[in-house]
């Protein structure tokens, strides 16, 4: 089932098209990655979903209902431009932000304590925010986003500012939240996190949607009949494939990256090879999201 439907959204700032005619659906209880280079329009789209800015055209539906301000307030939203009140103490600040989300004080205190423990911030309850490192402040912001246990989480560049260890910590929390039934939308221009996390993605470039769908399906669609083979002997010079590159492994063993001209079944390919070489390994080269991303947004593609 789809939780969010984005229907022909357009938005222009003075003299600059930020989004043109974007349509998307975001399935329930899954992680959705909004990808695109800097300035593609990701944050604008998120701000439209969260009703912080107003679209010029189009509609956003949440559970088949056009999204309203009251629905937005139930969302957990981690903006890209995020900060905290510097002079406030960590605990006090989280209580305030949770209360704004509608939690009672006692409930807020209880949940915040659990979260601070989970993210190794337990001893920071009474410290001023200005004494926190950037990573710690990011964790506090993350807690503020999830503490009211929203059904929908929107995270704009959630991993920026984290070291790999903490990024992993947050990644695992996001997965756990998904397993508990939350729907998570996050935007990023860094692809490493996408493959492990996302069930579905949409790629936006220069205000337009370039592709969307499930990660699996997109990868399937972007296979280009490329294989990696380890072999001994000499590859046949047939016209059915190109050798993209070739390296020597130990002894006589060589590795080649080859691309077939026509889509054929792996067995047919193997049949063409085994006549001339001894085959030790054969694997299909599946493109990474990063590669698809680069091939789609690089200028040569246009």
């Amino acid at each position: 089932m789809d939780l969010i439907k984005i229907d022909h959204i357009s938005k222009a700032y003075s003299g600059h098209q930020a989004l043109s005619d974007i349509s998307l659906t975001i399935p329930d209880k899954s992680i959705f990655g909004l990808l695109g280079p800097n300035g593609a329009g990701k944050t604008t789209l998120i701000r439209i979903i969260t009703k912080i800015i107003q679209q010029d055209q189009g509609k956003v539906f949440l559970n088949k209902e056009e999204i309203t301000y009251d629905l937005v307030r139930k969302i957990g939203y981690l903006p890209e431009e995020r900060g905290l009140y510097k002079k406030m103490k960590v605990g006090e600040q989280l209580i305030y932000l949770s209360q704004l989300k509608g939690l009672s004080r006692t409930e807020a205190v209880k949940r915040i304590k659990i979260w601070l423990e989970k993210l190794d911030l337990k001893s920071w309850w009474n410290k001023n925010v200005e004494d926190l490192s950037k990573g710690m402040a990011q964790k506090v912001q993350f807690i503020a986003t999830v503490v009211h246990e929203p059904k929908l989480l929107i995270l704009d560049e959630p991993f920026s500012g984290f070291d790999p260890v903490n990024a992993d910590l947050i990644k695992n929390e996001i997965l756990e939240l998904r397993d508990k039934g939350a729907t998570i939308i996050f935007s990023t221009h860094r692809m490493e996190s996408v493959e492990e996390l996302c069930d579905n993605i949409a790629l936006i470039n220069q205000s337009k949607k370039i592709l969307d769908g499930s990660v699996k399906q997109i990868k399937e669609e972007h296979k280009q009949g490329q294989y990696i083979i380890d072999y001994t002997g000499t590859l046949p010079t047939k016209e059915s494939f190109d050798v993209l590159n070739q390296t020597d492994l130990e002894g006589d063993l060589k590795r080649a990256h080859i691309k077939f001209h026509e889509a054929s079944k792996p067995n047919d390919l193997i049949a063409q090879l085994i006549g001339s070489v001894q085959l030790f390994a054969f694997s299909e080269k599946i493109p990474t999201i990063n590669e698809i991303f680069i091939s789609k947004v690089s200028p040569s593609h246009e």
Partner: protein
Amino acid sequence: MKFSFQKYLQVMNKVSLIIFREYLTRVKKKSFIIATFLGPILMGAVMFLPTYFALNTQGNQSFQVIDESGLMGAVFVSDDEVSYEYISTNLDVAKSDLLESDVDGLIYIPDFELNEPQGFALYGASNQSISTLSSIENTLELHIESLRLLASGLDKEVIDSFEAHIDLNTINLSNSGGEQESSSGAATIIGYIASFMIYMFVFIYGAMCMRGVIEEKSSRIVEIVLSSVKPFELMMGKVIGIAMVGLTQFVLWILLTAGISMLISVFMSPEALEMGAANSEMSSEADMMATALSALGGINMTLVLSAFLFYFIGGYLLYGALFAAIGSASDSDADAQQFMVPVTAPLIISIISLSLVLQDPHGSVSFWMSIIPFTSPIIMMMRIPFGVAPWELILSMFMLILGFLFTLWIAGRIYRVGILMHGTKVNWKILAKWFMTSD
């Protein structure tokens, strides 16, 4: 849109959370606590110190007198405070002796012509106070006058018998037929104090509002908060929260000032009474104080205080909203400067116009400036101690309420866009565009 009471409660609850946070973080600040306690102490000091010095510096002065004219013998009479010693040494010798003695000064009376009294001098190691100078001048002048009267054949006592002394009591007639004693001096003082306090409060707390918005904007907390509340709710929460900080400070100041001045008056009174008996000049000052105090009774202090509260809150809301809008358009305090001048101009004009209002508190300039919301808080507070017709007061208050609703509306529209804009060079045209942006 359907009105739901529950939703209304939720919104109010959130706004009150914001108000509470804005209030608490400021009231807990050291600077607030220091200002709150230092203010009344400074005020008390201003009241206390001049009296204190007046009482203490006068004591035990001694002067030498050289009278070369031979006309001024026994004019200067020693008392508890000042002692005079007539000497007949040469002036130059006396001057050099003066530096080595602990005598405070040397009064030199030359051999002068009655018609042209010149050449009098007071020598001393240090500067003499103005009151000492004037008392010596007075003594000399009085004596020369009576000498002249004698010379023209008139008797001083006869002249004295002609002298009349009148205190003009100013009495305000009210419509109800009652008569009230008033003092335009007291009204002026009260008007000035109230006007200046409104001016200061609006400025201080308006600027506080602006800095609060800039802080939220530059620390990037604002978008996190905006995922829970509407921009207008956030702005209102801040404006109201800071208004309450101002009220708290004002109430504490009144209480503390009252307490401190009560303590001082208890501490001072026996001495002051003693002084009054010893020094006729002091007792005339005490008379003036008593007159002023009784005139205070003529000014409706309840009205002044409640009007002060109203115009403080109204004026603050009017300007606070504009300050918040300026803050939302600025990334730093420096950015805000370009908008500060036009926004605060009416405040500054009001303060400059106070003397004009004072000359004619019921004139047309005074009237219009006390009706126009941008100037009315300061100008009306100047006029109220002089008595203002009820309809003028009601009109002025009504206009002020309209005024701050208007500025809150304008500010809200600028704020909701500006608060999310970073790094844009904002000018008036852009502000106007933000204002026009549809919801």
